[in-house]
């Protein structure tokens, strides 16, 4: 018996296809049952995320299992033959593919960590539904070890990859924990919302929103569970905040250097970080010359994001080296010879293996 992987991802299929193939979470147990009932598939784990739909499985005859599963996918998700091209990997290649996915090397945002949790969840679901046996258990447990090792021993997670994450990373380089940071958003556009959400997701304490159109400010403040202030009043709130995100459509500077200088004299050494994501810029560049004040504009954030992406791309080979080194010591456990007692498709756990190890959440 060997292992295989069949699926599509963000590199091979557009979102229009991926969304049609996506497994609704509540329906996965039913799908797992159906997949297990296919003649050639012995074990299965369904990994369905925004960027990939993959089925990992164990089978005696891989080619037959892949053909059967492809047919299952086409018929269940009502895609036309030829409309979707599934990739499939077998044996070592399938294991390597999962290890790279778990390490974030196959992700749209290289090195992202969300996929690690998604794989754990997919495996736990399959395991709790009796769809896994020794090969899948070994394969997924090993993928967790590798995913963790890659992230702790390389710099694949280092650096920001988007404007929002660059701004948040810089804020963390200044304040450390953002839990005590209060944020002011000037301008209620999409960029403001995205950046404010990123800051909130990393723990920012509270949000104040100010906008020329007060209704829009209130709308965004409600969405972000913050407070709206009138545009005439935002300067009065400056000494209450640690981070200012400005993204208005004003054709001139909204935040002036002398305003910030005045505020800083009252802040008793408290640092201020300003994020200017507007074009034309909202914040006078001279603000960055004030001591204990840091200013990032959109170009600087874009550059940091680009550097971060480049850095992560350079890390791919380093990560592959770590995986290769790990496997040279331990081998692919799921492919090791396993004395098989008997095989059953009855649903009883009578496969040749002990119950899988519990999923470790760390």
């Amino acid at each position: 018996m060997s292992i295989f992987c069949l699926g599509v991802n963000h590199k091979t299929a557009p979102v229009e296809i991926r969304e049609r193939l996506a497994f609704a979470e509540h329906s996965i147990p039913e799908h797992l049952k159906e997949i297990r009932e296919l003649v050639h598939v012995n074990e299965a784990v369904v990994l369905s995320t925004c960027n990939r739909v993959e089925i990992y499985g164990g089978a005696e005859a891989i080619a037959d299992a892949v053909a059967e599963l492809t047919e299952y996918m086409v018929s269940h998700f009502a895609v036309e033959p030829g409309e979707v091209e599934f990739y499939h990997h077998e044996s070592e290649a399938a294991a390597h593919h999962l290890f790279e996915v778990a390490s974030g090397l196959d992700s749209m945002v290289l090195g992202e960590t969300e996929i690690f949790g998604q794989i754990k969840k997919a495996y736990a679901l399959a395991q709790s539904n009796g769809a896994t046996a020794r090969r899948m258990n070994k394969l997924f447990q090993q993928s967790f070890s590798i995913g963790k090792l890659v992230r702790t021993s390389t710099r694949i997670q280092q650096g920001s990859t988007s404007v929002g994450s660059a701004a948040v990373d810089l804020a963390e380089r200044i304040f450390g924990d953002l839990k005590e940071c209060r944020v002011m958003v000037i301008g209620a556009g999409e960029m403001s919302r995205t950046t404010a959400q990123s800051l909130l997701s990393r723990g920012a304490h509270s949000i104040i929103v100010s906008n020329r159109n007060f209704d829009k400010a209130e709308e965004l403040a409600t969405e972000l569970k913050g407070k709206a202030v009138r545009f005439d009043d935002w300067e009065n709130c400056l000494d209450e905040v640690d981070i200012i995100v400005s993204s208005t459509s004003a054709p001139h500077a909204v935040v002036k250097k002398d305003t910030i200088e005045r505020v800083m004299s009252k802040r008793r050494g408290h640092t201020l970080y300003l994020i200017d994501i507007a074009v034309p810029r909202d914040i006078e560049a001279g603000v960055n010359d004030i001591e204990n004040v840091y200013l990032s504009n959109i170009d600087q954030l874009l550059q940091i994001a680009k550097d971060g992406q480049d850095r992560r791309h350079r890390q791919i080979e380093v990560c592959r080296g770590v995986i290769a080194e790990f496997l040279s010591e331990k081998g692919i456990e799921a492919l090791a010879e396993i004395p098989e007692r008997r095989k059953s498709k009855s649903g009883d756990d009578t496969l040749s293996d002990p119950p899988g190890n519990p999923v470790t959440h760390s």
Partner: protein
Amino acid sequence: MNEQNLIIATVIFLGGFILAVVALRSEKKPPAGLNIVIAIAGLVFQSLFLRERGELHGRCPITNGAEVLVFVSWSLVIMYLALGRAFRLSLLGVFTMPIVFLFHVIAIVYLSIADPGARPPDVLDPWLEMHAAMSLLAYGAFGLCGVAGAMYLVQDRQLKTHHTGSLFYSMPPIKYLIDAMIRLLSIGMLLLTIGIVAAFFMRELPTALHFAASGAVWVLYAVLLGIYFVKRPSPKRFSVLVIGAFCFALLTLGAL
């Protein structure tokens, strides 16, 4: 007198610094805690050297400039090991090890040229030992505070210019550096105060120059703390001040 242990400690700290720099530039992360292991190894050999000197003199080994420098280095490493992690400043090793290395090299050169040899006391005075040990531990805290100040200046520069290399991502947030400076200053002040108070109980009072130098360092750091809590200067200015204060404190060692 054999300086073998001091030389080994010096090589260890140099190696630790080189390793830290290489690790910062490397694509792979170094093993966690490597800098701590290296610092502990260096500390062991520093301690062996100081013990030998202590046995030679029959008292705390601070009888000449070289020994004082090694003792200050030892205090720096102790402070780094004791507080660096707690203050989330493990990267301090990159900045601390070259200072320790430099102090050791000066001490080795000094001892190889003009080792004054054994200077046993007429009578062993525990208050003198207490005064010396506390004061030099305070210097360790002040030294580490200066190192945190230097790190602040580096990180401030990187944030202002948006230069985000691997050093940038390895440095602690600047707010932690400010907090660390204040804590280390406070710890140093406490230790120095104990040291100075102990001096009043010594059998033989220190010389006027010694008192003046110790007092000047105490007043300087007290003023620095006062300025921070009353005026809240910008962290950048404060960092420059703590670096300058440590340089001044080092100069006063000549008078002690």
